């Protein structure tokens, strides 16, 4: 059969293409639909931990989007009672020590129902500190333990404003006798007016044994 005949079979009588004429390969060169309204989460990068000292996101954070979201899925640390934490930096710097002020509070409920509280935890926040921001705290290293959550960054490329962030997660918190489901909320700001371009996630002790972090732009 000639191409012309094959093509004809993929056309309706009004010369409109049938669905058989287009497959995923046909549109593999399309990277954007200019006429489609924005609003999607655009996946910019995925980092998968495998006994990793840290996971770095060093590209894709710029003025393209007004806000960005990290999804952390089933983060599992190699060291018991370590914390999943993060910091940011500017330009091509690799110090990851920007000045931060943030809040940290959590709701706790343990597996044997003997603990149910909500409270601030001032030991885990920072006041103009330059350390890593504690997010998932004192997680257990049990094999079935994974902690997950979301972090949002607003206007990281601004050269006028500080860089606000919000985070919420649920972590499998180590507690002798009865582990805890710990719902943690953090909020704060990187106290810099320089554009933030990169983020680092690590463990307060040892490696990130497993877990996936995805970076999205919000259009």
């Amino acid at each position, binding site marked *: *059969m000639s*191409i*012309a*005949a*094959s*093509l*004809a*079979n*993929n056309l309706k009588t009004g010369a409109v*293409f049938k669905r*058989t*004429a*287009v*497959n995923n*390969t*046909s*549109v*593999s*060169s*399309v*990277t*954007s*639909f*200019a*006429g*489609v*309204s*924005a*609003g*999607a*989460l655009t996946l910019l990068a995925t980092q998968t931990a495998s006994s990793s000292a840290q996971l770095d996101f060093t590209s894709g954070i710029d003025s393209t989007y*007004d*806000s960005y979201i990290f999804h952390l899925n089933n983060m599992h640390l190699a060291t018991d009672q370590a914390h999943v934490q993060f910091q940011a930096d500017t330009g091509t710097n690799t110090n990851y020590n920007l000045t931060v*002020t*943030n*809040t*940290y*509070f959590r709701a706790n409920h343990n597996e044997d129902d003997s603990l149910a509280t*909500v409270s*601030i935890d*001032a030991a885990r*926040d*920072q*006041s*103009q500190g330059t350390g890593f921001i504690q997010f998932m705290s004192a997680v257990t290293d049990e094999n079935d333990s994974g902690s997950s959550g979301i972090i949002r960054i*607003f*206007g990281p490329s601004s050269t*006028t*404003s*500080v860089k*606000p962030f*919000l985070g919420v997660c649920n972590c499998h918190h180590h507690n002798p006798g009865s582990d805890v489901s710990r719902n943690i*909320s*953090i*909020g*704060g*700001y990187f*106290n810099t*007016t320089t554009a933030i371009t990169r983020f680092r996630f690590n463990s307060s002790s040892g490696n990130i044994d497993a877990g996936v972090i995805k970076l999205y732009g919000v*259009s």
Partner: protein
Amino acid sequence: MGAITRAAANNFTTSGVILPGAINNTTVASISQLTQVAGKTQTLIQSQTASSSSAVSFTTGIDSTYDIYKFEFIQVHPASDNVQFRHAASTNGGSAYDLNPILSFFEAENHEGSDGASLGYITGHDNANNSGDTAKFTYNIGNDSDQSTSGEMWLFGPSDSTFVTQFMTTMITTHNADYSKMSFTCGYYNHASDIDAIQFTMSSGNIDAGKIKLYGIQGS
């Protein structure tokens, strides 16, 4: 075979399927909907950038198209110091923003210096029925050039004419006395009428700068 015909033939497989060379970004520029494509979570309805604005109002796009809407606030900066960011709702396209919001307000705070951290309910910022107040959802924003408030507001079923309209907000604010303030409100506009406009203002002075985006939640 003419040149165009020959070139076109090169863009098809022998079974008549279109090859990638035949379709690029320009080809699909007129497509405005991809109804069969999964994965899109929200649709941007409108984006407004404040510039010494007394109010930022969304008077179109809030209807029965979506059940759930979301506003995002990116580095909203007040002209005046020590002010509250507020929202108000209308059932007449913005002619009047006079609905009663009832809400709870709690916050977590931490100071840049030594004033410590706390978590608590803020009675001075909540609303009871018929209070006549607009809905405050931040706490004492500072107006230094690098200070602002950011976050999100969810609006549930604004076009529903049976139930009151629920909302919830989460904001992060640089407080005028250099606190990091994380504010949470939940509440409802106590009207079973069709809400079709939302307005944002500061408790005093203009919204100097910042961006506010309205999204419809896909599939809601």
